[in-house]
Structure formats: structure tokens, C-alpha cells
């Protein structure tokens, strides 16, 4: 009996999906859908010639989007981590402000994006602000949750052994909270990216969002799908890198 191999099945599913897509695309108008082979050739053409459509170039816009994502993520972490530590470890601050933050987190902010464009302008800043608004919550809430779930017994034991507050934090709280905090850092990245892409699509004047808008509204379906592939690929590659880093950072816990 052969062992059940998940990756084999995943591979089969992918191949089956791509084949179906390719065959189906042969029967429909290329404005509606083109097959994966044409998407790949459109993508390779974009990558080699740097031209997406007419005067719209690929690499400068990709760099803009990457810059926005990294900037939004950096600020999300810079705000989210300290805020999460404060909410998680100071009981009064947590009781007072967590419901407020949670309330802000749990409504569709997308309603406010046009206002953000008006206040912060049509350049990169407004997109970065949107990325921060979506991203920092995940960092904050995972950090505070991670700190709260630390076993109280461990803390009082360390204190009774004469550890200072700082040592307790460094040696007990941090290691115990690390997995939750690290997964918050990963989610923060994924959602900062989502925020940037949504911002660029709602006001498509720079970045990958501009290329998506241009190719989509002129029905350049092959290039449009290629741009979708790039965007989704950014998310998948970023998430994969974070997962690798996550298992590396957390390996010592089980060593």
C-alpha cells in the first residue's frame, strides 16, 4: 500500500485545473478568457520588454507597488507591536482601548478610502495609509493575544525566584508569546499587501493597480491575467518567505 501523498494530489489538482482552463479557453472569445499558455507568454513578454500596453511599463510600477507594500508593512509593525504590547500587558489600557480598536477593525474601512485619497493625495502616501490601516490590526491583536495567553503560573514562578520585571518579560513572556506574535507579523504583511492593491485599484494612477486597470478596461485579457498572476504571486511569495522565517525563528522552541 502506497502512503497517501498530499503533494501528489495537489499537483494533480493543479494540472487538471490548468488543462481544463486551457481547453475551455480555446472555445471562448479571447476577450473573455485566454488559456494559461497565452498568459505565460504574455507575462514573459512583459518581463522581457518591460512594456505592458502602449506607454505603460512594468518594472517602474512594480517597484512603486513593492515600495508601498514595504513602507506600509514597516509602519504597521512599528505601530502595531508597541500598541499590542501595551494592550496586552497593561490591563487598564487594554480594557479601555481594545474594544475601541476592535470596533474600528470590524467595520468595512473601504467606505473611508475615498476620504483618505482626498486627505492624503493621489500619490503613494494615500495607498500606504490604506495598507497601514488594514495591516497594523493583525500585528496589534496577535501581539496582545500572545501576551495574554502566557501561563500566569510561569510568571509568578519567575517572580518568586527574584527575576526582575524586565527579565521576566525577556525570558518568560516573550518566548511564550512568540508564535502568536510571529503569525501576526505574517498576517500583517499579507493584509498590508491587500490594502495597497485595493488602494491602487480604487485610485488607479500608479503601481500594479494602474496596470491592472489599464489592461482590464482595454480588454487586454492576456496581459490582464498576467498582471493578476504577478499580484497574487507577490502575496504567495511573501507569505512563503514569512512562513520559512517563522519556522526558523520558532525552531529553538522545540529543539
Amino acid at each position, binding site marked *: 500500500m502506497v502512503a497517501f501523498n498530499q503533494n501528489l494530489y495537489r499537483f494533480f489538482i493543479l494540472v487538471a485545473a490548468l488543462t481544463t482552463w486551457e481547453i475551455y479557453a480555446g472555445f471562448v472569445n479571447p476577450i473573455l478568457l485566454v488559456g494559461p499558455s497565452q498568459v505565460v507568454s504574455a507575462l514573459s513578454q512583459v518581463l522581457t520588454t518591460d512594456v505592458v500596453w502602449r506607454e505603460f511599463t512594468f518594472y517602474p510600477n512594480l517597484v512603486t507597488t513593492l515600495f508601498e507594500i514595504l513602507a506600509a508593512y514597516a509602519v504597521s509593525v512599528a505601530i502595531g507591536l508597541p500598541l499590542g504590547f501595551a494592550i496586552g500587558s497593561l490591563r487598564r489600557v487594554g480594557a479601555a482601548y481594545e474594544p475601541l480598536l476592535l470596533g474600528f477593525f470590524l467595520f468595512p474601512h473601504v467606505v473611508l478610502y475615498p476620504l483618505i485619497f482626498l486627505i492624503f493625495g493621489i500619490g503613494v502616501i494615500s495607498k500606504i495609509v490604506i495598507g497601514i490601516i488594514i495591516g497594523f490590526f493583525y500585528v496589534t491583536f496577535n501581539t496582545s493575544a500572545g501576551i495574554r495567553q502566557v501561563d500566569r503560573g510561569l510568571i509568578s514562578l519567575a517572580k518568586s525566584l527574584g527575576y526582575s520585571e524586565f527579565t521576566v518579560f525577556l525570558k518568560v513572556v516573550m518566548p511564550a508569546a512568540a508564535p502568536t506574535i510571529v503569525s501576526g507579523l505574517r498576517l500583517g504583511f499579507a493584509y498590508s499587501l491587500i490594502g495597497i492593491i485595493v488602494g491602487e*485599484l480604487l485610485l488607479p494612477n500608479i503601481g500594479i493597480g494602474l496596470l491592472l486597470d489599464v489592461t482590464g478596461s482595454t480588454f487586454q485579457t492576456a496581459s490582464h491575467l498576467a498582471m493578476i498572476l504577478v499580484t497574487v504571486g507577490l502575496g504567495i511569495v511573501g507569505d512563503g518567505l514569512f512562513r520559512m522565517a517563522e519556522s526558523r525563528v520558532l525552531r529553538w522552541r522545540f529543539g
Partner: protein
Amino acid sequence: MSITSNLLSPLMIRVYTVAAILLAWEAVVSTGTIKAIFLASPTQIVSALPSIMPVFAAAFGQTVFLYALAFTLAIFLGVGIGLITGTYGRLNGVLGPFIGMGLVSPKAVFVHLFVTWFGIGQLPVILFGSFFGFFPILINTIAGVRETKPEYVTIAKSMGFSTARIYQKIVLPAVAPSFLTGLFLGSNLTFVGIIIIQIVFETSRFGSGVGGVISRLSELVMIPELYAFSILTLISLIAINGTLFYLSRRYDKWRLQ
């Protein structure tokens, strides 16, 4: 003692914070510290409310109708696929990464394709909303099924329960709490999807919805009206989502009794 502790209760601290933000906002706009072209003060927003109210009522009514259809579709698909995927452990193991990718990938990139494929009526709006709301419902349903205690199922089987009875009496009650969480998140995201597609395709196609009006108001630089409209929208959405949240808590209490 009790008065001071009441005045410093978490609720009061929240009230102070919000009041301070509103006062500071009013102050910087009315004194002109920040140029007021794109900022409206709280008093300006309140005075714009009466004129924007009828516009809001019409737009929100239209959007809530689309939302109801989109959300229903998302629930059917999410629960249906979730029950199947959750029941078969191997299927869940194989599909897991694909579903996870669907949850965290930027779904907004498909907005143009939805219009290319489903035309310029309200169909793409409904389907785009479902597409957004589907994943949290799916994932939480799967998680719920996975949490069903296998011993219960074994006992029920040994007592001769049919599969349908097992689902009715054991699996579905076990799924309910996490499904309700998914419902809440999914409702939120369904609105997000609908508003995104309405903003992106505002002028030409779906101008009558909430997203369309928001986009139009910001193009016309009708700032106090834009703020008033956005705030009305947010309050209404919070009311709808809050009701869902309340219902899920109530159901949970009833279940545990």
C-alpha cells in the same frame, strides 16, 4: 471612591478619548490650522446630514438588497463546500493550502474580470460580494467540522444513527459556534467586495449603489456631504454586523444551556 473609579472606568476612558479626538478635529478645522479643503469639521458634517439623508436611504436600500443576495450565496457555497471538505480529512489536507491562499490573497484584483465575464448589470456586483464573503465562511465551517469529537460520531454510529441524523444531531451543533464567527466575518467582507466593485466601476455602470455615491461625492468635492454619507454608511453597516454578532453570542449561550 466609587465615583472616582466610575469616572476612570474603561468605558469612561473610551468616551474621553473619542470626545478629545472630536474636539481636536473640530478645533483644527474651524481655526484653520489645517487647510479645510478636504476636511469637514464635526459640526459641518452634522449640518450636512439632512440634505444627504434621502440620497443615502436610496443608495443603501439598493446595496443592502445586493448584499442580501450575495451573502446568501456565500453562505450556501461556504457551508456546502465546508461540510464536504471538513468531513473528509484527506480532502481537507489536500485542499488546505489552496483555501488558505484564497483567504489571504488580494481578491480585489479580480474586479475587472468579474465585469468582463458577468456583464454590466448587478450580477457581477452580487458575485463579487459572494467571492469576498465566501472564504471566511468556508474556513470556519471546515474548522467547526474538524472540531466535532470523533467519539461522539462513533457512539452515534454504534447506536445505529443514520448519516443524516449524525449531521443533524452532532456535526451541525458542533459547527455552529465557529460557523457564526465565519458568518460575521463573511458579512463584513461581502460588503467590502460590493463597495469595492461599486467604487471601481462607479460612473459608467453601478452609480446608484453606496460605493458609487461615495465615489461621485468625492469627485464632486462635496466634502461635508461625503463625510456625512460615509459615516451614515458605517453606522448602518456596524448595526447590521453588530446584530449578527449579538445573535451569534445569544445562540452560543442557548447552546451551552
